[in-house]
């Protein structure tokens, strides 16, 4: 499997997915 960080857009998409994931964790933890 190709490393997504080899591609610029793969890097950006990984960043967006990580943001979404962390956002959901924080929202769940804060009970929002």
């Amino acid at each position, binding site marked *: 499997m190709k*490393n997504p*960080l080899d591609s*610029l857009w793969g*890097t950006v998409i990984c960043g967006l997915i990580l*943001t979404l994931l*962390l*956002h959901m964790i*924080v929202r769940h*933890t804060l009970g929002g």
Partner: protein
Amino acid sequence: MDWVPAISRWIHLVAGVMWIGLLYYFNFVNVAAAKAAAADGTAAGISKHVMPRALFWFRWAAVVTWLAGAALLGSNFGAAFLLQKSHLAIGLGAWLGTIMLFNVWVLIWPNQKKILGIVPATDEEKNKARRVAFLASRTNTMFSIPLLYFMAAGAHSALYFG
């Protein structure tokens, strides 16, 4: 007016723009530019004149950003880094920034010194250094996206997580 948090916030933003701005320059512009320049034999100018200067401001802006961020956190530093519920968003941002600072000084800069010939390295060592520095830089670009989200969210928790 409380001067320490006010000035710290301002310095944190200015240095942060320089740090992440140069990180985006490296990733969005320089990777492709260096590849094209290598193909037509003009890469030496970038390596000699652009990269050492860009890396100087990049690595020191990272330090100033972190220190100003730590000063801004002040007595909340522990709560943020321990990811306590009251400081969860800014704590995540602080951890991402800290990992990125580590990547700059431990992975990117030492390997760039080999790539640019600032320290001696064999061709094999240079090739390995290129890969490590590239992946660390890409990791920081990836982390910068949630980092900036949580920096913004840290001061506006209800807006982002309400």
